[in-house]
């Protein structure tokens, strides 16, 4: 459809400026610094704008529209009530530099949330500052780095990351100034303990794990891994992307993890917003408390909340101000809405859904690793090879059935991977329908593979030429 710029006309407007209620003064700025050429922003009337976005919204798949089993992304239902709260003026229109007395309500939300998240993860202290999961990872890595430096370690330059890890893990470790060492997964999809032992030495600063890992499998050797790491004075880092499997059931802090980040936009149901904003709080064990980024919310003896900037060994500040407050607020609403009872049940149902779907799909597809999974599982798409069909084709065909494909080609260690996370907010009815669609497409792959290779048919556009896009790099109108 047309770009908004193509609908622009000099004489149209979507906005009028109010009458100026004061006299104009002369412009004192040197003419050199006065803009001559106006930016080519569109001049469009309201109805055109409204229809433009009405049309654009229709082009998107979304959780509200249908099933969205993107593995590792936890595309669960995002409560409308939480959005409504986040739109209250008394939360939304607070200036970050207001007097603390005029934002006690918001500070209390943050204070409570810090404690709830600490409780859920089994950690002692939490910072709400990081803006996203990867930002939390960087925060955690910087905490580890500074702590180890302060402990006098001179050469802890390495971070161990499994080959199944999210791409952000090695990237964040690198941004924190570490070198990344990859550890292979074994035939059961877990960290290969032998190789892990071989790689481990005193130069290792940290081990970054996701548990359950990106295959949806619980790292059963976690206590051994933890002991080995700690014996080498390395810290254990928990990537919380998969926390939705374990709320109230397993606490990373109880399994040896020293630092944890969470993705509130996954586990705690804040909307993903087409790619963000997220929020990536970081929890640490007490001994790392003094390394958290500033500020942390605390209260004084009279119960007045304030931002504590006086954190002795703080790594510094990770972003401006205090965090993505409106995301924090939504997560707070979600947690209280579910309660300790509901959070636990949510994780249980997420795991139930995943195992049910895994089991049903295993009847006609290849599940990469057998046995119980947690909140997600991975299909090895190479079983389609005999029909000359790729996972990409399978995924594109799913679009024709109105459901979003799973994450594909990740984790990298599974050939033609499809990583499926149904989440707990989907009903058995929906999941059964989706299983039928998987089955139908598998049949189509056998009988009429062109249907997959030429798919999608029913989407607003057909397959797009990514090569051309990357070659020409036309990134603006």
């Amino acid at each position, binding site marked *: 459809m047309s*770009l908004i*710029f193509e609908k622009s006309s000099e004489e149209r407007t*979507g*906005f009028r400026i109010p009458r100026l*209620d004061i006299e104009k*003064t002369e412009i004192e*700025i040197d003419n050199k*610094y*006065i803009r001559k050429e106006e*930016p080519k*922003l569109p001049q469009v009337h309201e109805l055109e704008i409204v229809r433009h976005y009405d049309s654009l*919204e229709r082009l998107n798949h979304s959780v509200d529209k249908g099933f969205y089993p993107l593995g590792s992304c936890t595309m669960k239902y995002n*409560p409308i009530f939480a959005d409504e709260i986040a739109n209250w*003026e*008394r939360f*939304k229109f*607070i*200036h970050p530099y207001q*007097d603390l007395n*005029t*934002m006690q*309500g*918001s500070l209390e*939300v943050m204070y409570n949330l810090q404690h*709830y998240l600490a409780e859920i993860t089994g950690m002692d202290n939490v910072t709400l500052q990081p*803006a996203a999961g*990867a930002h939390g990872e*960087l925060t955690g890595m910087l905490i580890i780095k500074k702590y180890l430096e302060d402990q006098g370690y001179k050469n802890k330059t390495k971070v161990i990351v499994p080959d199944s890890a999210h*791409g952000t893990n090695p990237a964040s470790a*690198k941004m924190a100034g570490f070198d990344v060492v990859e550890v292979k997964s074994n035939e059961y999809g877990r960290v290969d303990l032998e190789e892990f032992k071989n790689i481990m030495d005193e130069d290792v600063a940290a081990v970054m794990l996701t548990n359950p890992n990106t295959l949806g499998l619980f790292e*059963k050797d976690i206590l051994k891994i933890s002991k080995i790491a700690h014996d080498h004075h390395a810290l254990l880092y928990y990537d919380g992307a998969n926390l939705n499997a374990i709320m109230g059931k*397993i606490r990373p802090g*109880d399994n040896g993890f020293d630092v944890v980040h969470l993705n509130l936009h996954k586990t705690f149901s804040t909307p993903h917003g087409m*790619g*963000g904003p997220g929020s990536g709080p970081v929890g640490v064990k007490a001994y790392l408390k003094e390394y958290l980024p500033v500020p942390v919310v605390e209260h004084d003896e009279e119960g007045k909340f304030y931002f504590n900037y006086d954190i002795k060994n703080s790594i510094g500040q990770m972003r*401006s101000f205090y965090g*993505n407050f*409106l995301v924090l607020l939504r997560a707070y609403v979600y947690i*209280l*809405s579910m*309660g*300790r009872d*509901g959070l636990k049940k*949510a994780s249980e149902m997420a795991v*139930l*859904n995943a*195992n049910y779907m895994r089991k049903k799909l295993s009847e006609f597809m290849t599940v990469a690793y057998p046995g119980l999974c947690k909140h997600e599982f991975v299909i090895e798409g190479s079983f389609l090879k005999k029909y000359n069909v790729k996972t990409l084709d399978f995924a594109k065909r799913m679009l024709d059935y109105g459901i979003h494909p799973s994450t594909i080609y990740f984790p990298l260690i599974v050939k033609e991977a499809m990583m499926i996370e149904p989440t*707990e907010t989907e*009903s058995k009815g929906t999941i059964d329908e989706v299983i039928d669609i998987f089955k139908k497409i598998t049949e189509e792959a056998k009988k009429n593979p062109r249907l997959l290779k030429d798919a999608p048919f029913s*989407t*607003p556009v057909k*397959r*797009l*030429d990514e090569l*051309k*896009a*990357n070659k020409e790099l*036309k*990134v*603006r109108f």
Partner: protein
Amino acid sequence: MPMYPFLPHTKEEIREMLDVIGVNNVDELYSDVTNLYKDELNIPESMSEIELNQHLKDLAANNRHIREYGTFRGAGIYAHYIPSLVYQIGAKRGFLTAYTPYQAEVSQGTLQIMYEFQTMMSELTGMEVSNSSMYDGATSMAEAILMASRVNKKQKTLISESIHPEYKNVSETYIKPQNIEFDYIKYDEKTGRLDLEDLKNKIDSKTSSIVVGYPNFFGIIEHLDEIKEMLPEKVMMIVVANPIALGMLEAPGNLGADIVVGEGQPLGNAPAMGGPSFGFFTSKRKYIRQMPGRIIGETVDEQGKPGYVMVLQTREQHIRRDKSTSNICSNHAHNALLATIYLNVIGKRGLRDIAYQNYYKAHYLAKKLLETEKFEPFFEADFFNEFTIKYNGNLKILNNKLLDQNYFGPYDLEKNYDKFKNVALFCATELTSKEDVLFLTAFVEGLI
């Protein structure tokens, strides 16, 4: 056991599903874990919407905000008018509950919006390319410094002292692990602008970039062209810009900027206690492969129909892992959407008109304050919608008294600059009314 609106499973369905899986109960699904948590989490029991609504009302009652109080405070987050369309369209659930456009065919809404966003930000800054958003202004600046070092392989940055203090802090956190040196360039004590002499002295062969505000933290318009002239060829000029100011001020791209970043909040985003808003990130085209974050490009589908996809993904962490340009994954797409709608609504003419009204209001405020003779000029330089001014009394007491009058007074610069006793940073926008200004002047004159 309560039933949960977000959990659809019936007992019978659970039973059926367990049977299919081949386990006896839900606990068996966790039979492979270590240290199963046996206690109840120490957080409250689930609350009904009615109770939760009341709880949040009670909390909100302890907040006050810039739509119920008058405000003269900016310092990085600004009280601009947000047209009704911005939130109403932004709240569409097809935008809110979609994720990263991994499947382009069912994400053309997202992708086209981001493409339009990139176009608008490029236009605003006068740069050739833009990514589709960062977390905020501060991390954008930090990433810009890192990017400059990737481009010219030099390991030192010079940051203007008059950059927003929080941006300096964040940048330090980001660049230290990369072993990038940094130093601060003084501002001219009289004008508040960058001290060109100091800049000259500090540039050396290791210098990768210099970072300067436009306007700077004092609201002052830096002479970007003069700074650019001082820089050796390879040294990159990073400009941290206020996007509303760019409706009135010459685009940094026309004054020599190599990278232009900034805080996007003024464009249709609520202050939100500082987050979420977004950072914008634009540069010259030749640096695009070193840019952090997601970038959307135009292409065609199999039938030649135009469409949009993510491009240059090989820069990104999910492909390149520890070799990526940044670890950023989630961006702030939804906030960028709000900015896009905002710029659609106001248009180029609206942006210009708003910018000029900001200018007029701020200068009217400055003039009126000086007329009270309770204030005296501090820096003497051109400013946009914020300015520094020295109060003859105790600024903290004044601000407390203003709070009692339901006004958030000016930002107190002593918070960041010890020597700036009673130096106030005042802000005015298109929403600052004559009435606000006359109240304030009457108040400082003791007439109220």
